[in-house]
């Protein structure tokens, strides 16, 4: 019975923790500019994420080591430092965008500028991590995150032409604005295949003390959890296509976002959007802050766990404290959260190979995986993803210039 409960909890947390400012903004932009044409990009991103999350969980369950542990232990200190520097910088920008998301949600409700909220929000995040345990943070934030299901309800309430929606699941080329089209595809993929999600998932599996018996649970959680999450992203795109496109509104400023749910739920739509954005971004902020600290601690072999008191892991606690301060600084300085989001999603897409290539070796490593090594299908998918991420890495910068957000 305990395992069934854990599976349910795992799925719930994946759904609740899926949407954040990156997936909401890129899906909203996709819908507002190209109606349903970009649904395929969200589905492709979701599919890749399912495979990578399942593998991260399997590695953690079988070897009791996280992805970052294995990367340091197998590829050596130099590659680990290279990965740490690149990923931490990119993920720190994403953290700034997420903290910006929480502050912007507070601005919608209170009318007080988002910059003023940066410090109180940072303090709140720090307090939750300082006092909370892993399960309290992971389960608490994600269960609250279920409010984001309102996007799915809104999409249904607005009666989209389902046939045309289904047609959007097939990749098609746009008539005009090609550069902008492909730039949004890149940012959607960057938003869905987010390294911090996979790494955090593997750290979570170790924190929850998974072992070989969790392999099927891991598969159920990653497949069902991520699929429902992807459905929510598609729902955001559908709502945006039905609300913004007919009015000719292009999503270019965060203040345009809360209008999304007004057609469906009126005043409560406005409040629901602010609540969804705030809670989803808060959950993401907690995950990202912990993940960067996990990466540092795991790479250097320190004692790390959110379930221990800060005293027992002083370096780990110091790292996440510094990270929250840096993330909050990005918002205090007044960088536009929407522009920071788009930029950080594109940058994530451009740096994916660094995080994905190790999967190919680690998942076939006998010492770590014993008999649970990747099958042919998983390996084929990882090789496809690596190929795709190299293409993404090459095209993202030029696309940013020509088709920028």
């Amino acid at each position, binding site marked *: 019975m305990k395992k069934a409960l854990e599976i349910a909890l795992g799925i719930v947390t994946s759904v609740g923790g899926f949407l954040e400012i990156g997936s909401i903004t890129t899906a909203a932009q996709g819908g507002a500019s190209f109606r349903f044409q970009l649904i395929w990009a969200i589905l492709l991103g979701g599919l890749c994420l399912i495979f990578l999350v399942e593998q991260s969980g399997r590695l953690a369950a079988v070897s009791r080591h996280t992805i970052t542990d294995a990367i340091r232990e197998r590829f050596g200190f130099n590659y680990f430092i290279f990965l740490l520097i690149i990923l931490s910088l990119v993920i720190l920008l994403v953290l700034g965008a997420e903290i910006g998301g929480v502050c912007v949600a507070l601005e919608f*409700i209170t009318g007080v500028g988002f910059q003023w909220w940066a410090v109180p929000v940072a303090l709140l995040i720090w307090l939750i991590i300082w006092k909370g345990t892993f399960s309290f943070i992971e389960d608490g934030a994600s269960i609250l995150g279920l409010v984001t299901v309102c996007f799915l309800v809104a999409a249904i309430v607005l009666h989209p032409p389902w046939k045309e929606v289904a047609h959007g699941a097939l990749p098609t080329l746009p008539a005009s604005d090609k550069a902008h089209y492909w730039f949004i595809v890149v940012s959607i993929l960057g938003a869905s295949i987010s390294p911090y999600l996979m790494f955090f998932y593997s750290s979570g599996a170790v924190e929850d003390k998974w072992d070989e018996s969790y392999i099927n649970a891991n598969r159920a959680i990653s497949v069902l959890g991520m699929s429902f999450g992807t459905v929510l992203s598609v729902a955001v795109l559908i709502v945006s296509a039905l609300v913004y496109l007919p009015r000719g*509104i292009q999503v270019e400023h965060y*203040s345009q976002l809360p*209008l999304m749910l007004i057609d469906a739920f009126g*005043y409560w739509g*406005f409040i629901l959007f602010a609540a969804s954005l705030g809670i989803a971004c808060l959950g993401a902020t907690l995950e990202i802050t912990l993940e960067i600290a996990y990466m540092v601690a795991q790479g250097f072999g320190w004692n790390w766990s959110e379930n221990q008191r800060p005293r027992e892991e002083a370096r780990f606690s110091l790292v996440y404290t510094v990270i929250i301060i840096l993330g909050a600084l990005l918002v205090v300085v007044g960088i536009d959260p929407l522009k920071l989001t788009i930029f950080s999603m594109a940058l994530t897409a451009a740096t994916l190979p660094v995080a994905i290539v190790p999967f190919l070796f680690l998942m076939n490593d006998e010492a770590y995986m014993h008999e649970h090594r990747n099958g042919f299908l998983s390996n084929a998918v990882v090789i496809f993803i690596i190929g795709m991420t190299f293409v993404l890495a090459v*095209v993202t910068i030029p*696309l940013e210039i020509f088709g920028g957000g």
Partner: protein
Amino acid sequence: MPVMLNETERSCAKNIRLRLLLLILLASLAACSSQSPADKLHKELRTVVSWAATSRMVGEALQNGKVLQGYAARTFEAAGRNLQEESRTIDKSADIPAEERAGAQAQIARLEQIVGQLKSMVEGKDNAALSQQVEQLKVEEQSLKSSLRGDSSQP
């Protein structure tokens, strides 16, 4: 054993192919983004329409109490700021014919004026004046959209 190119020959062949691929990629991206003046004006006007439509949507939502006043005030402010920016960018792009630029800037100025009005009415309870401004905004928006559809091939 097929004749093996030695290490250096094979790697420099690979380099040439790589550089060629990159060149083609950059050229194709550049091609599809070179904008003629008409396209550039069209793109700027689409942003202007986007902000006009945003302001109208917020105005209507404010009338029916569907948004909070603080949010509405801030959004009108952002709309005003961005409309000014658009006006400046159009002013700076010399390759657009002068009278088209002037026409566009005049339209933007009218929009800015209405949005300014709306911002000042957010606190006031004068719903009649509010809906009158929203109507005016709708008229301006329609004229902009029709001029956009008129002179452009794109949908």
